């Protein structure tokens, strides 16, 4: 086994991208907050509570991006068996779960004053919860497998199959005539006020950039985990570990 290199290839490029993304996100978050709380008009029927939408929808987009990337990298991993692809799939799944957690928390907080209930068996809500459970299971399975390669293979299959829930979530409102609002024109809704649409685009862009920033950090974590494993082997070969007396 070769000894670990000092720095993996592409580290400098990755560092620069991370810095650029960090600066962009740091600038865009206050701009988003200004847009949400100062610039955007209050929605006529729901009132101020509708402003939850500007973090709820972008979180859903970032969550779906995580799930989609996990499925893509899982498929590529099953084909190429490249550890880097597995690392990317794992990182995407973790971020997908984190953003979907935000969706599942903010959704009921919006629903309580608007629908009168925290949760209902509505199709979009249920299918989103199923997606969260699938990828939470993916993360638990990753932690609990004895054989990492076998675990990576099983998880790649879950990551690939689980993503089939995303189109179900998207079309559930039409297929089962759900209660969930169809706000965007692309999803069959009536569209948004121009200011609202601008704020939503801005917030969505910020969340996608935040997702990419966190993805780079999470991939770095995975690389460090691999480095620890290979260094442990090297260190044990050179100076075997002895239990303290």
């Amino acid at each position, binding site marked *: 086994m070769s*000894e*670990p290199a000092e720095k993996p290839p592409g580290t400098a490029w990755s560092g620069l991208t991370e810095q650029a993304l960090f600066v962009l996100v740091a600038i865009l978050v206050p701009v988003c907050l200004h847009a949400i709380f100062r610039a955007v008009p209050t929605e*006529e*029927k*729901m*009132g*101020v*509570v509708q*402003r*939850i939408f500007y*973090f*709820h929808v972008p*979180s859903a987009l970032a969550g779906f991006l995580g799930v989609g990337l996990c499925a893509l990298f899982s498929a590529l991993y099953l084909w190429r068996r490249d550890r880097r692809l597995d690392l990317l799939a794992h990182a995407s799944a973790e971020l997908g779960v*984190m953003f979907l*957690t*935000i969706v599942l*928390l*903010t959704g009921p*907080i*919006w629903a*309580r*004053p*608007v*629908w*009168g*209930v925290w949760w209902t068996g509505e199709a979009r809500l249920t299918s989103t919860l199923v997606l969260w459970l699938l990828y939470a299971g993916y993360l638990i399975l990753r932690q609990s497998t004895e054989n990492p390669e076998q675990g990576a293979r099983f998880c790649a299959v879950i990551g690939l199959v689980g993503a089939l829930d995303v189109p179900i979530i998207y079309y559930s409102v039409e297929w089962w005539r759900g209660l969930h609002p169809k706000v965007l024109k692309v999803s069959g809704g009536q569209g948004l006020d121009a200011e609202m649409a601008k704020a939503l685009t801005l917030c969505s862009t910020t969340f996608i950039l935040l997702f990419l920033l*966190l993805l780079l*950090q*999470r991939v*770095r*974590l995975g690389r*460090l*985990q691999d*480095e*620890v494993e290979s*260094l*442990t082997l*090297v*260190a044990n070969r*050179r*100076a075997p570990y002895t239990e303290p007396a």
Partner: protein
Amino acid sequence: MIDPNFSSVVPLLALLAQEPVTGFTAENVAARPEIVERGLRFLNLAYTAVWVVLAVYLLSLSLRLRRLAQQVRRLKERAGL
């Protein structure tokens, strides 16, 4: 004593069958400031939830990164690299 005509049950069922009162309509939002205040409470709760989830994840990520970086440094010292 049980009412054979269930006369007391009927109004109760009617009450249960009513739509939940949401309060958020254009008219009563304008007329009742407590509705706006209630909306602000939920808005505050939602944004707190978003920031808490993000903060917890960032903290966990940075702690894991720091722990692994320390482990790498220790292992390199042990291996004489």
